């Protein structure tokens, strides 16, 4: 899994920290032609030589050379249309051999084919207001989550974009982030400027809609047979927990790439909160 590059790092290089290890500049994405860079995402799989960056109304595909010391603009596309269109966010789909990228601009979601840099789908008015973030289901193709200023989190099947598959309306202000758990995609994390982080269990539209289907020989000789029986009951989507440790708007949430049950959230006041998926749920999912 390639490491995530903070989108803001290009914009504001001023806060060079003194105590931490100094960062070495490997490569420079020449963005002089395009002013504001909203988002930079690595190719999720493969050898990590491709980067997509979103700048204003342009979507740019960079190719890092062998040495990773030089970025070459491989291809680009731009949004046409009335008004000043600006990309706000983008994600790279881990499916289809990493040939798809989804972007958000204003209230619209768009899908792009990186091979031709052409639009493959478009969800107009995906949200009532600005779309803040989106994420692909890592285990289930075509499934996409988005969130925005209308306080909603919506789940889409990109094959049928007329209606969202599911809508969550748990936050009371803009939802800034939505993240699928990397391995258990029923776990969805959202962070909002209402200072809350919400962990939801979207089991009905996950890749394991009937719970973890365990083979008989897989059952360890542990004592937890009751929970195993439980998992056969129909599962319902629900909010697992609402974390209210933050005193100010939460602007980032993400899952640990090392431990699938760990996640962190960062709020405006600089508070970083690390939480764990409730143990009961963890066992419920695992066993």
């Amino acid at each position, binding site marked *: 899994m390639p490491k995530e590059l903070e989108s803001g790092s290009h914009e*504001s290089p*001023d806060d060079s*920290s*003194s*105590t931490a290890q100094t960062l070495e500049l490997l490569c420079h994405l020449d963005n002089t032609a395009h002013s504001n860079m909203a988002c930079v995402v690595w190719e999720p799989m493969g050898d990590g030589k491709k980067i997509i960056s979103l700048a204003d109304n342009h979507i740019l595909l960079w190719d890092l050379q062998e040495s990773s010391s030089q970025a070459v603009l491989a291809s680009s596309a731009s949004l046409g249309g009335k008004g000043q269109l600006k990309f706000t966010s983008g994600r790279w789909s881990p499916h289809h051999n990493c040939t798809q990228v989804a972007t958000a601009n204003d*209230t619209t979601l768009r899908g792009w084919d990186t091979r031709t840099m052409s639009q493959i789908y478009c969800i107009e*008015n995906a949200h*009532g*207001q600005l779309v803040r973030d989106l994420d692909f289901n890592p285990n289930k193709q075509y499934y996409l989550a988005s969130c925005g200023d*209308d*306080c909603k989190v919506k789940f889409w099947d990109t094959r049928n974009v007329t209606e969202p598959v599911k809508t969550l309306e748990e936050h*009371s*202000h*803009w939802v800034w982030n939505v993240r699928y758990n990397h391995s258990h995609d029923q776990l969805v994390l959202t962070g909002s*400027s*209402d*200072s809350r982080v919400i962990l939801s269990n979207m089991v009905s539209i996950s890749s394991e809609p009937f719970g973890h289907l365990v083979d008989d020989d897989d059952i360890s000789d542990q004592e937890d047979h009751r929970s195993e029986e439980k998992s056969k009951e129909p599962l319902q989507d629900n909010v697992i927990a609402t974390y*209210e440790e933050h*005193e*100010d*708007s939460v602007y980032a949430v993400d899952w640990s790439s090392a431990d699938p049950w760990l996640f962190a959230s960062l709020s*405006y*006041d*600089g508070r970083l909160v690390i939480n764990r998926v409730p143990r009961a749920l963890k066992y419920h999912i695992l066993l």
Partner: protein
Amino acid sequence: MAAAAAAGSSPGSRPGDSPEGPEGEAPERRRKAHGMLKLYYGLSEGEAAGRPAGPDPLDPTDLNGAHFDPEVYLDKLRRECPLAQLMDSETDMVRRIRALDATYTIRKMKNDFRKMEDEMDRLATNMAVITDFSARISATLQDRHERITKLAGVHALLRKLQFLFELPSRLTKCVELGAYGQAVRYQGRAQAVLQQYQHLPSFRAIQDDCQVITARLAQQLRQRFREGGSGAPEQAECVELLLALGEPAEELCEEFLAHARGRLEEELRSLEAELGPSPPAPDVLEFTDHGGSGFVGGLCQVAAAYQELFAAQGPAGAERLAAFARELGSRYFALVERRLAQEQGGGDNSLLVRALDRFHRRLRAPGALLAAAGLAEAATEIVERVARERLGHHLQGLRAAFLGCLTDVRQALAAPRVAGKEGPGLAELLANVASSILSHIKASLAAVHLFTAKEVSFSNKPYFRGEFCSQGVREGLIVGFIRSMCQTAQSFCDSPGEKGGATPPALLLLLSRLCLDYETATISYILTLTDEQFLVQDQFPVTPVSTLCAEARETARRLLTHYVKVQGLVISQMLRKSVETRDWLSTLEPRNVRAVMKRVVEDTTAIDVQVGLLYEEGVRKAQSSDSSKRTFSVYSSSRQQGRYAPSYTPSAPMDTNLLSNIQKLFSERIDVFSPVEFNKVSVLTGIIKISLKTLLECVRLRTFGRFGLQQVQVDCHFLQLYLWRFVADEELVHLLLDEVVASAALRCPDPVPMEPSVVEVICERG
């Protein structure tokens, strides 16, 4: 005394007797009786012998004497006897008179019997003589009598024969004259005889002739029957005659019905013609009248005639009639339904109900006559169906009226802006909408109420007494409408792409108030009205008022919340644009409050006025007497931040935020999009919360120069000066605005705040 005198005055042949005391009564009496018998049997000899021992026959006091004078006797008695004796003699007298009466009657009977005996003897003799004579005469006349009898028989036979021989010509004549009845009677009389003697050639000929004529007769009757020009009664006569001619009844039944069918189909055709596609059909009342008098009347006649004529056919015949009625009836019903369907669009219920009433009433007669055909049931079903459809129609009408009202409101809301002057106020519009809907509901109730009017023939059917009232009117129409109204109103909340906001916010506000009014009063009023008009009294469960009220309240709440969101979004967008489009790094030193802030305050004021038209003020927290007091604290805090900010050591941000964090620890978390209460302050608080939170978030995404920060400072102070009055808790405004300034300061590389006094001056000038 008078009676004794009367008795005494009659035949003076009474044996003498003197009134004596009771001691000598018994022998005296016997003697007297003997005397009387003697007198009866041997009058002459008794007279001749006389009665030497008897008293002087000339003595007028002798009761039995011929010369008895009652006056003298009485005088004598009165003069001679004392009272006691007088009394005795009176009772004695009375007793004797009674005895005397009996004796007299018996004597007379005896006499009569004897006479009768004599006469009887004589009669017997005479009879014997007569018998004798009679026997002799009979014997003499015997022979002749026999001959006469024979002659009479021959005569009768001859007359019959003559009748038979004349029969063909008579029949012909009758047939020619059209006296079919007569002909049939003749034929009937001759039939048996001809049948019996058909082996005789002459009779055979007559029979053949008759058969030919009869066949012709039957032919003619049938002809007449078929022609159909004649009315049903004449036809019935034809059928009767044909039956008498021995035609097969079954065939006649068929033919009769076929013929009736022809006529009824004619009626149906004419009805169908009235339905006609293009020319406007006559009104439904006229139509059902035609149908009732033409078809149903005809059917009644046919049924009555049929039952009269073919009563002998038994159940099979009745079944045939029922099938006939069923088939034609169903065609008639189909026509009626088509006509009624045309009526569905119309608004006039009274005509329809009257038409249905006639239709239903009319069909009750044949219903009784043809119970098996089930026409009355079918008619009731049609009426019920129509009633249901009417309910549906009225529900649609109410919905359309509601939507119409909404359109009117939209237009009214759109118009004043064009005209540039204030149109009708929201309160007025609300009152208009409410009264319009209410009057529509009442009109619908009244219209539907016609179905249950007492004088309507079907109103006592179980459906109209129970289900129609409860499930149809109350649940289907009224509750259904209120629900659909709530749904329609709610649908404005989930309009796709809320941003587009095709719904004017004022409409949301108005609908919200409307629903709230429904919750508080109107629903229970309407339902009470309905329950009163339609005495709902059956076991079907009905929606309780409280449930509906809860729904209405929920709708009102959602609408108001949506209103807050929409208005908040409008102001948010303004603020967001103003923050996003400006280059805060290279801005000049603030001299004025930015126009957009003034605009925000103006808009907020406008919203305040708008909401104030429909919602009550609401409660606020106790306000500090001097709102400007806060000014200093804000800037003192921001100054503090300013003091720390330049250094920007790693620990600095923590310290910077410490204050605000501590502050937040003690303040409630702000739910930005939270449900609102039904009052103005709550609504405004919601809108301002949303707007300021947006401002905060937008400011955090920007980088400010020194003057940029100062501009934010000025703007926030300005907002604070004007917005506090709208909200429930001014602390909230302060908190959010502090946050904005603090956030801007954090995003400022050179945070040098403006002097509070300068800020105040600028704000007051602006």
